């Protein structure tokens, strides 16, 4: 069954049918060929309960927040300020892309929203300064994935919701690995650009006075981060509610540092509705597919498969890692989580692993899935913001960062405290 679904997915996707619609078609297919029950009768109920979700409303809120920052000019100034500080490194502005993505990750719960925000402000610089388009856009696509690792994070909210684990603890656990990944991205960029200086474009240094003045432009984002994360840890807002605090904060910041107008608000709202519906068609399609797969016995198949291997705990984790890398090529990330978490997490926890730690490990793998072809939302978002060039350039550009993510996967397995240190220390 799993093989047929994967083959069907690939075939239908290459026909350029929208990804969300393909997931529904596969659900109908599973119903017809692998189940003796009239599962499609449940379609309406699945669509209702998949979208009637107080958790998922965080998605439009985070997208709206990013839209407001971009359209008020706050995002551009943040980017320029980080440029002053990091562009002396081999790789130049590529580091500004990563640093900006890291900063916006701290205010956005969504990787797609983060990548879209950074791509919009960074892309105009690439050609001007003669950077290699592959590395430049790859860094944005990869840096954007940090949006779901550095708190806040919609995907961690979904993980906490599905596994009944504490979302604030998950957020704490994601902080160090998120910063570690950002650092790893920058290190790998430096190494690449030292080996092949042509990749890196212009390195620029700025006088100290300019650098110090630029710090002022970082204040809005830091304030916003403090506001969102502070409201969660002060116990004022649940992680989902904090997204609405973020929207209000972004509006205030836009008001003081940029400018608010009806036209700009209208554009922000339209962009938000567009991206939200795009994500939700995929999320709803994925939950319907999951429903048919579960009814047709995917849980048993996976459980039997894992039990049949008779693995040690470490072996189990390795198989799970490979499974997520492979599935991550083809399956949209929120769907991937919804489909696999109820099956995989109990198996992993039964082997004695900490569910908080596994949540963070899974997020690294999910980040990878966001930038691996053929189904990688961040690739499409970044390509969408470019004025020229092909999608394959973005794909090639992300390869070094996929390597960095793999390193992080093994680091997390070898040293679980990278994730667990903060939640345990602050308990």
């Amino acid at each position: 069954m799993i093989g047929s679904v994967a083959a069907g997915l690939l075939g239908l996707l290459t026909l350029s049918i929208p990804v969300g619609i393909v997931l529904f078609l596969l659900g109908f297919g599973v119903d017809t060929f692998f189940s003796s029950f009239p599962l499609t009768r449940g379609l309406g109920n699945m669509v209702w309960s998949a979208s009637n979700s107080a958790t998922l409303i965080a998605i439009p809120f985070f997208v709206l927040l990013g839209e407001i920052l971009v359209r008020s000019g706050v995002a551009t100034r943040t980017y320029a300020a980080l440029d002053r500080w990091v562009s002396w490194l081999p790789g130049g502005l590529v580091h500004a892309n990563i640093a900006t993505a890291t900063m916006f990750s701290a205010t956005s719960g969504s990787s797609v929203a983060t990548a879209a925000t950074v791509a919009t402000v960074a892309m105009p610089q690439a050609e001007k300064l003669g950077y290699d388009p592959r590395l430049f856009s790859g860094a944005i696509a990869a840096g954007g994935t940090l949006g779901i690792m550095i708190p806040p994070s919609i995907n961690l909210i979904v993980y906490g919701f599905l596994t009944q684990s504490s979302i604030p603890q998950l957020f704490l656990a994601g902080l160090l690995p998120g910063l570690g990944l950002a650092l790893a991205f920058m290190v790998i960029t430096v190494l690449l650009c030292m080996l092949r200086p042509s990749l890196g474009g212009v390195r620029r240094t700025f006088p100290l006075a300019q650098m110090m003045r630029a710090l002022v432009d970082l204040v809005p984002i830091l304030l916003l981060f403090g506001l969102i994360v502070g409201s969660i840890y002060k116990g004022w807002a649940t992680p989902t509610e904090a997204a609405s605090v973020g929207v209000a904060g972004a509006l205030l910041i836009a008001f003081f540092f940029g400018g608010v107008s009806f036209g700009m608000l209208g554009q922000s709202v339209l962009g938000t509705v567009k991206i939200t519906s795009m994500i939700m068609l995929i999320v709803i399609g994925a939950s319907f597919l999951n429903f048919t797969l579960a009814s047709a016995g995917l849980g048993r198949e996976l459980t039997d498969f894992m039990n049949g291997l008779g693995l040690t705990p470490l072996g189990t984790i390795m198989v799970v890692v490979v499974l997520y890398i492979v599935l991550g090529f083809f399956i949209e990330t929120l769907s991937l989580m919804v489909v696999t978490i109820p099956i995989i997490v109990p198996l992993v926890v039964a082997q004695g692993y900490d569910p908080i730690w596994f949540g963070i490990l899974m997020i690294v793998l999910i980040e990878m899935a966001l930038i691996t072809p053929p189904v990688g939302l961040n690739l499409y978002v970044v390509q969408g913001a470019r004025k020229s060039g092909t999608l394959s350039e973005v794909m090639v550009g992300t390869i070094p960062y996929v390597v960095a993510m793999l390193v992080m996967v093994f680091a997390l397995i070898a040293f679980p405290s990278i994730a667990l240190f903060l939640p345990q220390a602050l308990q």
Partner: protein
Amino acid sequence: ETLSVVGSWSSLPLHQQYEAPFWSETLPAASDGKLTVELTTHNQMGLGLGDIYPLLGQGVYDVAMTVADYAVADAPELEGLDVPLLALTADEARAMVDAARPMVADIYRDRFNAQVLAIAPYPPQVVFCNHEIAGLDDLQGLKVRASGRMTAKLLEALGAEGVNVSFSEVPGALQNGVVDCAVTGAGSGYSAGWWEVSTHLMPLPLGGWDSVVTAMNLDKWNGLDAATRELIAAEVKTSFEDPAWASAQTALVDDISCLTGNGDCPAGESRSMVLVEASDADFAKAREILTTEVLPDWAERAGGDWAQRWNASVGQVVGVEIK
């Protein structure tokens, strides 16, 4: 004959200890292999909680089991199955459930096109507080996390404020004072570490017993031959329902000892929460509120002759009458 069965929460003891063994081993064996079962759970399927029985009625699967309270949006009369504070021990709860069974059977037949096979208990839903309380009366003015409409109404009538917080957020909410108290099963509270963030435990079923109803699609049921129907009905009673009830009281006593340290804790380390016993006066007051406000309110919601039927069955057993 293959049955497609949807179990309740896969992570909770009722599923792991009773549902899963019964449907995947006991019943197929008892039928000499004539019945085979494909078992999954509603959370693995990603079903909305309110959709579980409606989809059963449409024949999307053959058998489903979950907390009856999830279905009251479609059937307000079903709230009468699990009224808080009326049953304090497992025996009382079972007597109440047995009395309600004919009503439940009618509700499932008419609303969900389903045949009720069994009604089993989740643990009673007791009160954890991170606030000093000496009895029910002290809940006045406190923020309490509870689920279910009737519990919310009762809390309101007691002068407390109902707050909606998802299960996984409760520890943080208790710690930060977003809520002062929260209601859940004693065992769930023990294993989820609620004792770390709360001080007082009041083992009164303020959230009822959360009865789990097992039901089969009515067309499927009618399509089975009489012998198979008898076999299923008998097996589900002796090998699923009876054992689940038999362990309920011991489990409650054990869980309370685990949380308070008064007695043995087979599950692990004992904790030291303060055990709060409600006084008789407290209790009388709560029952008074229940009979004068909460239940009449329900009778109106349910409509029809449900209040009379309830008085004549459950009401008789627990000594309460809706006026």
